[in-house]
């Protein structure tokens, strides 16, 4: 077999190959529909164009999905992230709107710190419910998902808080090196999470807790603390995402900020290759997943697919993405080829140890 062929084969086998392929196909389809789709021009000294929009808009989703990846990898799930986005955004905007000088950097930083602090407390609340009291994650976080929206509205008294603060706006709309600042924030967060998990042993410990909680406990891991920690991290990520979402429109809307972002985040995580059953997690995959989802949303708008059929379109794309990613599906086409490895029959994904819920 030729060397190039071999290299192609290893590339095909790479975990991120298919998500990348899907992304490329979507971009290509858009470009065919509207040749200017990928065009980037310079406008006011920053880059301007649809690809930039996609990057900027996916930043909050990437953040939320990063935290969600860790949570999911411990075998949990965090439904409260959307509410947390709303709460943190509302607190920050409320504080800024009450301040005499909204453009004061100290004011903005205080607002951010306050909001982040509250989010951390709420994350800790989730963590305690799951790891200490032992409530199933989906229900434990559902409590905050429901009550959190109420809290956000309580903070804003049901109104949309509009602010006019340059520094705060910058979180969502500012630019750095001609690119939106939000991208850098998301990237920094991703690198931070990656460093925290992969440069230390945290990643492995999280994966082992998700893979088999009892075995991890017997190996001397304080599983409870790890589980607690991931919910706090998830809340922190959600809070920053909340800042971006609200800064993007310079207003906090307790109702709509981060609405249904939890579903998108979970989708991104799963598209990225992390199993909902817990265990191995893939941060790179998650980021790609988030990009795919945002591209999908943008495609709906860019191709002006009618709102009535937009969801049908989404359904088709999601299924297509998952199918071509599924090894079992691809194996159906490869089976006849000699020499190719056979499909893993009892799939490793399902091979779950018994973990008391």
């Amino acid at each position, binding site marked *: 077999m030729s060397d190039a062929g071999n290299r192609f084969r290893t590339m095909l086998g790479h975990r991120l190959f298919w998500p990348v392929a899907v992304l490329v196909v979507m971009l290509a389809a858009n470009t065919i529909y*509207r040749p*200017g*789709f990928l065009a980037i021009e310079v*406008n*006011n000294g920053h880059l*301007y*164009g*649809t690809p930039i*929009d996609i990057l900027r*808009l996916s930043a909050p989703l990437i953040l939320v999905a990063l935290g969600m990846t860790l949570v999911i990898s411990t075998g949990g799930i965090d439904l409260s992230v959307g509410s947390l986005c709303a709460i943190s955004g509302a607190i920050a905007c409320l504080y800024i709107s009450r301040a005499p000088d909204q453009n004061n950097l100290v004011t903005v930083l205080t607002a951010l710190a306050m909001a982040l602090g509250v989010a951390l407390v709420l994350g800790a609340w989730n963590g305690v419910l799951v790891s200490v009291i032992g409530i199933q994650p989906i229900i434990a976080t559902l409590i905050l998902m429901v009550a959190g929206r109420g809290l956000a*509205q309580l903070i804003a*008294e*049901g*109104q*949309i808080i*509009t602010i006019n603060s340059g520094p705060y706006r910058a979180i969502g*709309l500012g630019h750095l090196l001609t690119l939106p600042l939000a991208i850098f924030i998301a990237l920094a967060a991703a690198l931070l999470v990656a460093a925290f998990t992969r440069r230390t042993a945290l990643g492995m410990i999280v994966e082992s807790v998700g893979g088999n909680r009892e075995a991890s406990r017997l190996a001397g891991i304080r599983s409870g603390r790890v589980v607690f920690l991931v919910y706090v991290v998830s809340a922190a990520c959600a809070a920053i995402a909340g800042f971006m*979402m609200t800064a*993007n*429109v*310079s*207003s906090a*809307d307790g*109702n*709509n*900020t981060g*609405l249904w972002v939890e579903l998108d985040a979970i989708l991104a995580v799963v598209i990225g290759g992390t199993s909902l059953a817990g265990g191995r997690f893939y941060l790179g995959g998650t980021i790609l997943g988030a990009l795919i989802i945002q591209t999908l*949303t*943008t495609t*709906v*708008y*860019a191709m*002006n697919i*009618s*709102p*009535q059929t*937009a969801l049908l379109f989404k359904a088709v794309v999601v299924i297509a993405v998952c199918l071509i990613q599924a090894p079992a599906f691809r194996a159906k086409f490869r089976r006849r080829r000699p020499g190719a490895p056979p499909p893993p029959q009892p799939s490793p994904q399902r091979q779950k140890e018994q973990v008391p819920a």
Partner: protein
Amino acid sequence: GNSDTGGGDGGDDGKLVLGFSQVGAESGWRTANTNSIKEAAAEAGIELKFDDAQQKQENQIKAIRNYIQQKVDVIAFSPVVESGWDTVLKEAKDAGIPVILTDRAVDSADKSLYKTFLGSDFVKEGRLSGEWLVENKKDATGDVNIVELQGTTGSAPANDRKKGFAEAIAADPKLKVIASQSGDFTRAGGKQVMEQFLKAHPKIDVLFAHNDDMGLGALEAITAAGKEPGKDITIITIDAVKDGMQALADGKFNFIAECSPLLGPQLMDLAKKVHAGEEVPPRIETEETTFTQEQAKEALPNRKY
């Protein structure tokens, strides 16, 4: 009145009891509506039983059932959707409790199931917007390209405003809706959709947004694209909340059709009347107006919500 409250001030003190089921608290408009009703009830000495249905028709039906059990004197509600109220309204009728609809109508064939409707006419709001546009662009030459930011797909205000607007602009063939997409009534949605509109369509003359919030979101996208809102693109919205009025006064919007949330006083009035058995007209529209930039500057200082 025969009410059951958890103690405190309630009880059989002869106060009229009104059960009100609100759609939810999905927007600033809605919150203003709720506040207006609460304040008016307190002022009119009416005991209000308030329930938030969180945008679910099921919840509203449940709430109405519970009001019937509690034997409130009058039931009022803003239906989440138009259809599907006959069964529960029949139960209310059998229990002898009069019903008032607010804000949104129901399409029941049996008009005896409710006493009256109080609210705005979404179709009319769309129509007023369209008519203003026709008037405003009557001298324009060449096609006028319109993009539309719809509300939540399938919701009554979105459907009706779209309909009314389309009816009105049909009068002038050069007015063309070249793109129409849902922005979910939110600022973020409006902004994201507008960004794509701007990239896909080099020449956009008019933006019609189904509410102020989406229009405000779109403003940001327009500015970022290097265009001047209100000048390069004519912007028409509906609602007239404070932020929207501000934008109008600042010359960023061009026209707003009002949709007033301040139904409280009228509602309390009606409640007293139907409870006393007085005849009321079957349909009462809230007093609403439209605003141009000049009118907005005048009205802005006394805007409450």
